[in-house]
């Protein structure tokens, strides 16, 4: 499995400085907002498939972050993971309140990139199959896969975002990959 690097010490120190500044004065939150807006918007959009709703939930995410920035304790976890956790909670809250199905809207260019990175022999006709197999996974499993491959998060960050242990996050990801492999093997044998 491809390794997504953690942040460097320099980057973490810089983030810590930004958080300290924002804790002193909320006006300094601007830089955190600018740095992470696109990333969080894309994440929310991927989970809602609705541009206006994604804009609302992203705004709500940053508002919650701004309201709680003073309570944020620096423990070496990047601020983006904290924002992802808030966004994830806001998305879940929305789907619980509306009683709708959770959505995973996956972009074709990203799927192709992941396939290219895996360096496996992939035929174009396998993409619809992948979509079908992904829908057979549990929501917990697909959430971990999404964070891992589409958001390119490492397991430490995934564990923090989903409020589970790091080993739990790894277990979910490997179990999901095993299931996908199994589905593909069954399909290959059939054809």
């Amino acid at each position: 499995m491809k390794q997504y690097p953690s942040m460097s010490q320099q980057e973490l120190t810089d983030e810590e400085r930004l958080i300290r500044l924002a804790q002193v004065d909320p006006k300094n939150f601007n830089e955190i907002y600018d740095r992470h807006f696109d990333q969080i918007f894309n994440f929310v959009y991927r989970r809602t498939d609705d541009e206006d709703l994604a804009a609302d939930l992203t705004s709500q995410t940053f508002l919650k972050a701004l309201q709680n920035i003073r309570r944020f304790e620096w423990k070496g976890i990047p601020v983006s993971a904290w924002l992802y956790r808030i966004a994830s909670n806001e998305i879940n809250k929305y789907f619980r309140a509306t009683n709708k199905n959770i959505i995973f809207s996956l972009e074709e260019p990203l799927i192709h990139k992941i396939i290219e990175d895996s360096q496996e022999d992939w035929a174009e006709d396998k993409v619809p199959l992948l979509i079908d197999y992904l829908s057979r996974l549990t929501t917990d499993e697909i959430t971990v896969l999404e964070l891992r491959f589409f958001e390119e998060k490492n397991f430490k960050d995934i564990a923090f975002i989903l409020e589970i242990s790091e080993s739990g996050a790894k277990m979910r990801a490997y179990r999901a990959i095993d299931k996908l492999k199994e589905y593909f093997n069954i399909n290959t044998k059939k054809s």
Partner: protein
Amino acid sequence: MTRHDIRFRRQTMSSGRIQKHKNYQALLQRHKRTSRMRLMLYFIIAILMIALAYGLIYYISATYVDKKTSREPATTSAIGHPIENLLFTKL
């Protein structure tokens, strides 16, 4: 198990389109508004708590005085004010 739908998008959302939704000033205004509302809520809760505490103290002291006066009517009438004596003897 939670239900979910997998959808397939042909294109990634462009950065320019995301920028349309970016508005830090609006966020800051919203933050100020919600902070003000939260402060007002805390203020109202504090007033209610004080009122409740005051009412409780008043109620406790009133019942305590009532009990005390009903327990010692003789001594009170012996040394009390003439009007009080009159009231207690009537009771």
